[in-house]
């Protein structure tokens, strides 16, 4: 059982006041806060072990290399992956998906091939494929969304066929909260001889992930959305796949032998980590994985699901408020997007901020989904382990205030 009150003690940032009120941080889908264990891991690294890795003989270099590579192992354990060498560290989910679109896509996708996406993808899982399509002449196809905000599986099924080369789907939507049946879709892709890419930016932080059970070929996520530092992303690839791929970025640390005209590459995963990696942050990400591991991702999920249910209940009593996405909390992650009759999302976010409540307003890097929903923007509250019912109530209070501000003059006069 997660006890947010206890957990909060590990998050120094949450102690502050914002606009005279205690900070209520509900922008976790954008990035989460970091426990002191992660901050301390950074400090410890820079105060005791900092050195460039992989080639050094001196003590600090060996120490830093061991710590860095140990986190690859921890990441594998977190994903229940069998091999640490199948994990490449990138800057973020975005870079991981670009790596796939370039290093795998450029060699395997050709004119007329089809790339299947969905209308609920984040721009990071759209633009790299658009760029690939432009380079290769491949065709993009987008599966639609049901009125309840779920992926239209029949459409996905109908779309995947012999011309499909790759299917790339978000595991959990950062706007609707929808959790997609990626294992099932992966099965469709496999049967069609296509590869399955999963954007796990929102799922790895919030759901127990068993990478082998997902049956996908690539899985990408970001440390900063799961208590880790900024600047670290993860790309996991199915056994053997990285070996078949040409490198993406070229430079130090990814080579075996450099000659004037051509070079040979280091073994995976190093082949894909050119230049000095973000050593300190990868090591600190290890502390984030430990933190989540100690809580247990099952408990994290249970806590956030309960909170989501409570939020949906509280918000449903606010006049003129409409929530997007699946109705049942067990079919969605801890993300609640909504619209209000009277006020624009930006005004809602400003007024919430006036209450110390941090929510996000905008297109959430999902313009195709906004267009599908027929809105320019939504307001979004998203949860993490340190949030509790009080936070939801503070949000609800702020939203009531929105209605008072934007209601007719008479009720406004009363506040």
């Amino acid at each position, binding site marked *: 059982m997660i006890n947010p009150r206890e957990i909060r003690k590990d998050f120094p940032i949450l102690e502050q006041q914002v606009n*005279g*009120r205690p900070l209520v941080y509900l922008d976790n889908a954008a990035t989460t806060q970091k426990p002191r264990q992660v901050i301390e891991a950074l400090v410890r690294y820079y105060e005791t072990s900092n050195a460039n890795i992989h080639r050094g003989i001196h003590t600090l270099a060996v120490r830093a290399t061991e710590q860095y590579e140990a986190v690859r192992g921890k990441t594998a354990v977190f994903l229940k992956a069998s091999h640490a060498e199948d994990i490449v560290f990138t800057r973020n989910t975005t870079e991981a998906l670009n790596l796939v679109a370039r290093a795998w896509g450029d060699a395997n996708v050709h004119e007329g091939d089809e790339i299947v996406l969905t209308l609920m993808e984040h721009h990071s899982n759209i633009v790299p494929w658009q760029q690939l399509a432009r380079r290769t002449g491949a065709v993009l196809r987008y599966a639609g969304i049901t009125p309840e905000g779920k992926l239209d599986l029949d459409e996905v099924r109908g779309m995947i066929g012999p011309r499909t080369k790759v299917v790339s789907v978000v595991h959990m939507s950062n706007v609707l909260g929808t959790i997609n049946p990626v294992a099932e879709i992966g099965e469709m892709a496999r049967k069609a001889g296509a590869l399955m890419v999963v954007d796990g930016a929102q799922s790895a932080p919030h759901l127990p992930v068993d990478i082998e059970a997902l049956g996908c070929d690539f899985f990408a996520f970001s440390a900063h959305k799961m208590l880790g530092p900024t600047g670290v992303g993860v790309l996991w690839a199915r056994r053997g796949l990285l070996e078949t791929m040409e490198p993406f970025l070229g430079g130090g640390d990814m080579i075996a032998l450099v000659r004037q005209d051509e070079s040979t590459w280091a073994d995976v995963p190093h082949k894909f980590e050119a230049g000095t990696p973000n050593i300190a942050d990868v090591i600190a990400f290890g502390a984030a994985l430990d933190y989540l591991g100690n809580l247990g991702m099952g408990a994290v999920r249970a806590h956030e699901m309960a909170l989501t249910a409570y939020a949906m209940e509280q918000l449903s009593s606010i006049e003129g408020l409409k929530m997007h996405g699946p109705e049942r909390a067990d079919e969605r992650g801890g993300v609640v997007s909504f619209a209000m009759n009277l006020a624009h999302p930006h005004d809602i976010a400003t007024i919430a901020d006036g209450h110390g409540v941090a929510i996000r307003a905008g297109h959430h890097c999902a313009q195709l989904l906004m267009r599908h929903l027929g809105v320019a923007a939504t307001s979004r509250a998203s949860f993490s382990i340190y949030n509790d019912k009080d936070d939801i109530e503070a949000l609800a209070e702020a939203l009531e205030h929105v209605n008072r501000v934007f209601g007719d003059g008479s009720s406004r006069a009363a506040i």
Partner: protein
Amino acid sequence: MAVAEPQFDDLYREIILDHYRRPRNRGELAAPSQRVEGVNPVCGDEIHLDLEIGDNTIRDVSYWGHGCSISQSSASMLTERLKGCSIEEAERVMGKVRAMLIDGATPDDEIGDLQALEGVARLPVRVKCALLCWNVLKEGLQQATTAA
């Protein structure tokens, strides 16, 4: 510790909300001499201005678009204040509004209702909302000058 009053109520002054709820001069003009538009790509706010300019005067002006209360009320107040003004006066008002929003200059009565936007200057992230229609206007006036 006592819980502070919610902030930003001074941002949403009644006059702003009134322009947001009951926009003035909203819609297209029949025969605009200039039709200009602007989008804020970060937040999606959109403002279109129709201007009917002649004899160095803004004979008529209207707007449409969508977005937050700040961007829309700013446009509504713009049209109300500038309809019938000389270009010279319009440019002076524009200068004062921009100075208020960008540099935090204290506004004077010449800008009328637009003084209500003073609170926005304190919130850099919302300043661009209030400025949007003024950037559009600037382009419209430039076009008019070039055309003349």
